[in-house]
């Protein structure tokens, strides 16, 4: 972490923790599970109300670049025995997510919560549960860190 800007991340963490303690402020369906340091945080995400993902809970792993907020964090769904990634045209079965705000459209005025909310609404607006095109090929060759992938963004309609 570029030491000076780590203060911003600490502030984000404090704000999230305050929000989580207050049901009126909390973003519904998004919960901080773990943030032991300023390197890796975990969230649980679910879409409340009617959606294709009703009653499904997903875990999101957020890894911060030392240059955060000038560089986007690496964000992916957790794949383990207990939690699976959502079946979604922008989510690969290894948990990698193709979303432009995590790459080309990142801005330092965005925040971790903004990312979580974007991903939640990406799930909420999904019309058909299907895997991304070329999922198997991608998963076979994908780097550990999704930030090393050059995604091609297809827009919200896909």
């Amino acid at each position, binding site marked *: 972490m570029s030491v000076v800007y780590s203060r*911003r991340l600490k502030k984000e963490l404090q704000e999230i923790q305050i929000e989580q303690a207050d049901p009126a402020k909390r973003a519904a369906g998004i919960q901080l599970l773990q943030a032991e340091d300023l390197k890796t945080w975990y969230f649980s995400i679910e879409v409340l109300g009617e959606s294709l993902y009703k009653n499904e809970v997903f875990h999101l792993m957020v890894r911060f670049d030392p240059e955060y*907020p*000038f560089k986007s964090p690496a964000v992916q769904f957790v794949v383990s025995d207990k939690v699976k990634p959502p079946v979604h045209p922008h989510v690969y079965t290894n948990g990698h997510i193709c979303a432009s705000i995590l790459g080309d459209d*990142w801005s*330092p005025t965005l925040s971790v919560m903004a990312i979580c909310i974007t991903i939640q609404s990406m799930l909420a607006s999904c019309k058909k549960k299907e895997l991304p095109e070329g999922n198997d090929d991608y998963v076979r060759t994908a780097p550990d860190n999704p930030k090393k992938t050059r995604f091609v963004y297809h827009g919200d309609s896909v």
Partner: protein
Amino acid sequence: MSRTQTQTNASCVYGVWYSLLFCFSNNSRSMKVIVKQWHAIAQWQWDTGKTDENGDPEEDVCGICRVPFEGCCPTCKVPGDDCPLIWGECSHVFHMHCLLKWIGTAASKQQCPMDRRLWVTAERKVAASHS
């Protein structure tokens, strides 16, 4: 200069401000200075041109570092002229150092972090009422 002041005697304010900082930052070693009393005569604030519902200047934070404009960017130690604000033609405001650091990255594509329009630094027009 694009700041508002509640009083015109700016140099006095700076005097108070800097000497207080000096005392606090040195008190761990040999300098034993205790501030017993201080008398504020004025305060300054960046004039971002934005006002709250009461018409008072809005207290706002830099969208990049999330530190109030009245504080300095994370790389500076003292607020004031050495850590100024920068305005874009798009009307967005940031700490100058934060914005330049962003514009200096390839990922920025030279765009304003708020609206992704090409960043063009604006000549700051100070509202007539503050002069």
